[in-house]
């Protein structure tokens, strides 16, 4: 029944909101932006709940919306940053997520798609198949991007260690 899918979606959102926030924060690295992204993702998901066909797809479906919102927030911000002082960029790095870690720094240098795939794989512990459903890349592309990204990370870190 349609309404139980709706109730299921609400349940899913309530149970996983902290995960959503972490994903959003890892993308935006800014508390307010991450909250905005989660809130608009929840809003859009609930508005479009009728497009969910089965309960199993809720997770990948929601993450797709969420990541889309994160990218939208980032896009909006890059427009802002272009016109603002370069120094202001610094303010987007919040405490508790310092740039100190070299791996983290390297990760953030990667292409945003690749970053996303690595985060979903290792932080959200998703299967490659789920990542493929979320990002819209086919499975092989996800694999290629993931392994290329990891290789790049390894190389860059070793270089830094030298």
């Amino acid at each position, binding site marked *: 029944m349609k309404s139980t899918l*709706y*109730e299921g979606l*609400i*349940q899913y*959102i*309530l*149970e996983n*909101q*902290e995960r959503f*926030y*972490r994903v959003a*924060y*890892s993308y935006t690295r800014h*508390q307010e932006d991450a*909250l905005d992204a*989660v*809130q608009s993702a*929840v*809003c859009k998901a*609930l*508005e479009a*709940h009728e497009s969910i066909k089965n309960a199993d797809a809720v997770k990948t479906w929601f993450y797709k919306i969420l990541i889309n919102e994160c990218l939208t927030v980032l896009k909006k911000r890059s427009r802002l940053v272009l016109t603002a002082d370069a120094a202001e960029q610094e303010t987007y790095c919040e405490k*508790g*997520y310092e740039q100190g*870690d070299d*791996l*983290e720094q390297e*990760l953030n240098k990667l292409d945003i798609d690749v970053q996303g795939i690595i*985060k979903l794989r*290792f*932080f959200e512990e998703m299967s490659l198949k789920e990542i493929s459903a979320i990002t819209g890349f086919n499975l092989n592309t996800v694999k290629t991007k993931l392994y290329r990204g*990891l290789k790049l990370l390894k190389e860059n*870190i070793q270089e830094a260690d030298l």
Partner: protein
Amino acid sequence: MSKLDKMKEKYDGIPIPEELTIRVQQEILRSQRQQEEKDNAAHRNRFRRIISNMAVTAAAVCILFTAALNTSPVFAVEAAKLPVIGGLARILTFRSYETEKDDIVVAVEIPTIEMIEKDTGTSVDGINQEILARCNEYADSAVLRAEEYRTAFLETGGTLEEWAKHNIKITVSYEIKQQGNDYLSFVVRGTENWTNAYNQSKYYNLDLRTGKLVTLEDMLGSDYAKLADRSIRQQISERQNAGETFFTAEQGGFTGISEDTKFYINQNNDPVIVFEKYEIAPGSSGEIEFVIEG
């Protein structure tokens, strides 16, 4: 890669701002509200279908109702309590129960219309069935909402003890407005004591001669909207002069009635239009009523 593990640890440690739950909850409440409006509209349509199918289903429903009434001990007790107030029909409590689970109290009193004179040739089974379905549906969804609230409350660090102190109570009850020779008018209400967002009230006005629900148009004629609007506007300005506050049109105040506007019929057989709390005036004013003298 242990560095990745370290990073994962850090990722899992990203502090969650308190605001998150609030903002997520806000979206959910807003969506549920819209959803409910949609459901209500669907329900109205379904109700129309029920009425049109009434002839077909009447026989089946009749058996069901008779069986239920006769096997319900509550019915017997409740029926004994109620005096018969003349007329052709009366309102009875069809089913009344109170349950408690997870410190959520549900108190339900479902009314039913009983035609006293059996040979009037009218049938109210369709209406009774709708009342029953509506009450059950409301109670079920309210319990679900309360359970969700409980889950969220406990998951965000609330204790069972604190939860119990919330004294969550869901009530479905009815109030008779008029039980006379011409009309039967009553309201069925559903309330949740922890939120106003889902409170529901549904007015039933039954013309006893036809066995049909009465509309404002039936009461006031085809010019009913104009007539009622004029009277309400006049009463609002009178009350404003007396110091009462109403929302302006821009604030979402009174803009005119529609065929869905709620009303009941008072002892003088005049329609009384009812606006819910917050609908056209601040919450402190509660429900607001306007008697429309035809």
